């Protein structure tokens, strides 16, 4: 009997403690946000809607139609149409389609992109009324110059991101210089130096130098393995002639 009473009181006391703990939460600030009114603060590397950047300085489209992203996409949601222009003998981008209804936002395409053209933006509000409207074409995908500058700023600034320099340079430099060097991409002596250099100068005018670095890297890769698209490497040279010229000096 005494046991029963003490158990009953113990139980009631536990219930009381539970109720008190819940009640204490009255005085805690809510953790939810009024979402459409105030946007969430997303991390720079958040993998949202895919988009194509342009050179923030010149406004040139960065895509070189190398089709790396199209090939790596696990969902096959990217379709690139390009043709070889007869006069320059280079690939020209005609259309770039991404079916966001198929995309799973894994970000692999952004990892393999040699020119940092395709990126994951921080936009995630893509709801629409039909599946067809989720297929974004070149016009819808390409960011404006300002937006590109914003994303370059946001994504490239931090030094310890392996993202921009990794995939293409890794393949390229690995082929060219040091075969057995199992280091991450940015540790490559060949391009790590320039990469680091522009990372240092990034504070001053990062997007320009960044973009300059990319085509340079691209050409190097192209020289090295010369296998996937022999036309691909010619494009960046044509596009960014003068940066390529001063890059070797640097």
């Amino acid at each position, binding site marked *: 009997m005494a046991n029963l009473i003490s158990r009953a009181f113990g139980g009631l006391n536990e219930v009381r403690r539970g109720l008190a703990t819940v009640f204490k939460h009255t005085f805690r600030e809510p953790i939810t946000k009024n979402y459409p009114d105030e946007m969430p603060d997303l991390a720079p590397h958040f993998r949202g809607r895919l988009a194509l950047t342009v050179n923030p300085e010149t406004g040139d489209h960065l895509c070189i139609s190398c089709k790396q992203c199209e090939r790596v996409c696990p969902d*096959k*949601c990217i379709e690139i149409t390009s043709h070889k222009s007869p006069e320059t003998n280079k690939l020209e981008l005609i259309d770039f389609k991404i*079916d966001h209804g198929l995309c799973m936002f894994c970000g692999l395409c952004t990892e393999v992109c040699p020119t940092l053209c395709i990126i994951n933006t921080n936009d995630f509000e893509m709801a629409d009324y039909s*599946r067809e409207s989720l*297929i974004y074409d070149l016009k819808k995908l390409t960011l404006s110059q300002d937006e590109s500058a914003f994303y370059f700023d946001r994504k490239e600034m931090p030094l310890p991101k392996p993202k921009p320099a990794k995939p293409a340079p890794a393949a390229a430099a690995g*082929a060219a210089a040091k075969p*057995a060097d199992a280091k991450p991409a940015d540790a490559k002596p060949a391009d790590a130096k320039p990469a680091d250099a522009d990372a240092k100068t990034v504070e001053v005018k990062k997007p320009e130098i960044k973009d300059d670095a990319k085509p340079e890297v691209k050409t190097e890769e192209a020289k090295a*393995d010369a*296998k996937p698209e022999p036309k691909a490497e010619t494009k960046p040279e044509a596009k960014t002639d003068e940066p390529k010229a001063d890059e070797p000096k640097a």
Partner: protein
Amino acid sequence: MTDEKPSEAEKPEEKKAEAAKPEAAKPADAAKPADAAKPAAPAAAAPKPAAKAPEPVIPATAGKFEQFLKEHGIPSERLPLSLTIETIAVSGDVLQSALRLLRNSSEVQLDLLLTVSGVESNDTFDSVYHLWSYSNLDELVIKVLVKKSDVPEGDLPAVPSIANFWSAANWHERETYDLMGIRYANHPYMRRILNPWDWEGYPLRRDYKQLVDSLNDKNPHSMR
């Protein structure tokens, strides 16, 4: 990479027409691992020079468990597959007694059956048993190899079931039956487990053709 990938990727709209292509390409690639690696080697030399290292070489000495099984009169054969885990092959007839022995004997106590998997290799269907122990660090992989040439036409390769004395194997065997089409003889409830009961074919087999139905068919607007 270079030989099949671009063709597959560049013409996605033709993929449906060439539905058989990946399946056709895969056995060719898989048929001879060593061969597959070699033609790839020059092309892949750039990305991965480490390809110069050939197949892993395993010392052919008898392992602990092979020895143990031999002592108890169960023939087994060590397979040169993995560097770290002892892999032995036993025949289907002695599988049950071997597993019973390994599980219950106080010497080895391999009493944790991690998984039963079905593997299709070039000329065999393998039923693979990963054995661990709750009480010690031993690991063992047992394979039962059923030669494809031994399987009668229109029949499934058969392996004796161990689900009657080891419940852990029950669902794994059903799954292997479901996906790989290895029939476990005397299994208490040999039914498909992951796929619907009226599914046709065994999806993980190399000759499996993916069904094209209205639901999974190509959306005219999709670029898949």
